[in-house]
């Protein structure tokens, strides 16, 4: 049984923009997928499409209260939009360190409680380039209380060429300066963590 997820271009690019906005910090966030209408018997053949990404925090990731607040608010937002929280991503503070740590495993496990096919994604900053020539993610699946790494390549994308083109363009244009994460929202409630402006830019480039 192997489930796999597909990344929508917007989801991928927001992850990278988040990491680019805070190159000196650890960053993390959530991935959301469209809620499947019925659970088919052979659901393992249906890919989970990660349609959007909600950037959460930058800096210290290992504290609980604001994470719980974010999960609560985003859960409500998901219900309104027929989404489900399907994954968690993290980029560590040190470039060369791309292994999942305790925070990643804990949050990933928490998400997996509500969504068994949840993916935990680590961003590999050593391969981060403006040109985005290759996918720089490592995907982990939850099997028997362990996280197992699965290969992430161009097949993990709905349309890799599109994802590459859009992400590269937004990086060049420094769109990450206007990316909003949940931390920014807590600093000023008017900051919108759904990032409508960036969503517009993504659609424009599609």
């Amino acid at each position, binding site marked *: 049984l192997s489930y796999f997820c597909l990344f929508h271009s917007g989801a991928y690019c927001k992850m990278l923009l988040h990491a680019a906005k805070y190159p*000196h910090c650890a960053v993390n966030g959530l991935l959301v997928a469209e809620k499947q209408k019925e659970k088919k018997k052979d659901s393992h053949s249906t890919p989970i499409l990660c349609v959007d990404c909600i950037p959460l925090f930058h800096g*210290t990731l290992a*504290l609980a*209260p604001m994470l719980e607040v974010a999960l609560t608010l985003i859960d409500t*937002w998901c219900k309104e939009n027929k989404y489900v929280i399907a994954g968690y991503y993290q980029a560590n503070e040190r470039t060369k*360190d791309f292994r999942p740590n305790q925070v990643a495993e804990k949050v990933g496990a928490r998400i997996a409680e509500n969504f068994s096919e949840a993916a935990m994604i680590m961003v590999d900053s050593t391969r981060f380039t403006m040109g985005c020539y290759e996918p720089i993610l490592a995907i982990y699946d939850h099997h028997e209380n362990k996280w197992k790494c699965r290969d992430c390549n161009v097949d993990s994308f709905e349309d890799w060429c599109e994802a590459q083109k859009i992400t590269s363009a937004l990086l060049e244009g420094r769109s990450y300066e206007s990316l909003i994460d949940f931390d920014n929202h807590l*600093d*000023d409630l008017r900051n919108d963590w759904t990032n*409508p402006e960036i969503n517009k830019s993504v659609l424009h480039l599609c």
Partner: protein
Amino acid sequence: SASLSERSEQMRDKLRKWREDNHRNSEQIVDVGEELINEHASKLGDDIWIIYEQVMIAALDCSRDDLAWTCLQELKRQFPGSQRVKRLAGMRLEALEKYEDASKQYDSILQDDPTNTAARKRKISILKAQGKSAEAIRELNEYLEQFVGDQEAWHELSELYINEHDYGKAAFCLEELMMTNPHNHLYCEQYAEVKYTQGGLENLELSRKYFAQALKLNNRNMRALFGLYMSASHIAASPKVNATVKKANVKYATWATNQINRAYQLAGRGTKENKCSVKAVEEMLESITMS
């Protein structure tokens, strides 16, 4: 021409503000600073030296070694033998990941001046960059025994402990900071977050008290407001508390929810996301009053 000198004034003011706020917006500093240095150097007077320093550090952050090198040469020429410039040279070596050479640079500063705190802190940063957390923590503790008033260092240590999930020791560092900065709402709020994360009823109650204290110091601290809601509602839901404590915490949580609601109404432009947040907060309120 008038508009040109206006422009250089504006850029100068921007750089000054970013210096004062200790902003790490390195790309913007490089953009503004590079133009200022290349085209308006004559108008900067003595400010130029501190600008060279600021731009150099930002350039290192952006892998602009060319720009960093230029700034460093100007500073070396103007301030030969300066410890402060030596430290900048060390930072450049760090940026190039030449950690041994950087360390030697800082050691030579410390030989001449054993109380040079900047050099000692850079050495600890090297340990951090190399992922040697335990050593960084040990060195930072030693440093703080000597320089017990260094708030930046206490805060750095609290973060190192949090990353190691050693919440008890992180709390201790924040207690030091709260003692010396009793009006700082951020320290109160961070302390409350650490206590909450530590878990257990006693720590939850402490966290609630400190979230409330942070709010008293700054009633617009949203983290404190949300934290008050979270801690109070967890306490109210705990099977270990008696009816009186439960009632009191339901009251705190309800108050917090109403304040959160109000804050969203004030901030909202009727956006869809905002409506969802308001809805989530209403659900939060229902969940407390129902329990």
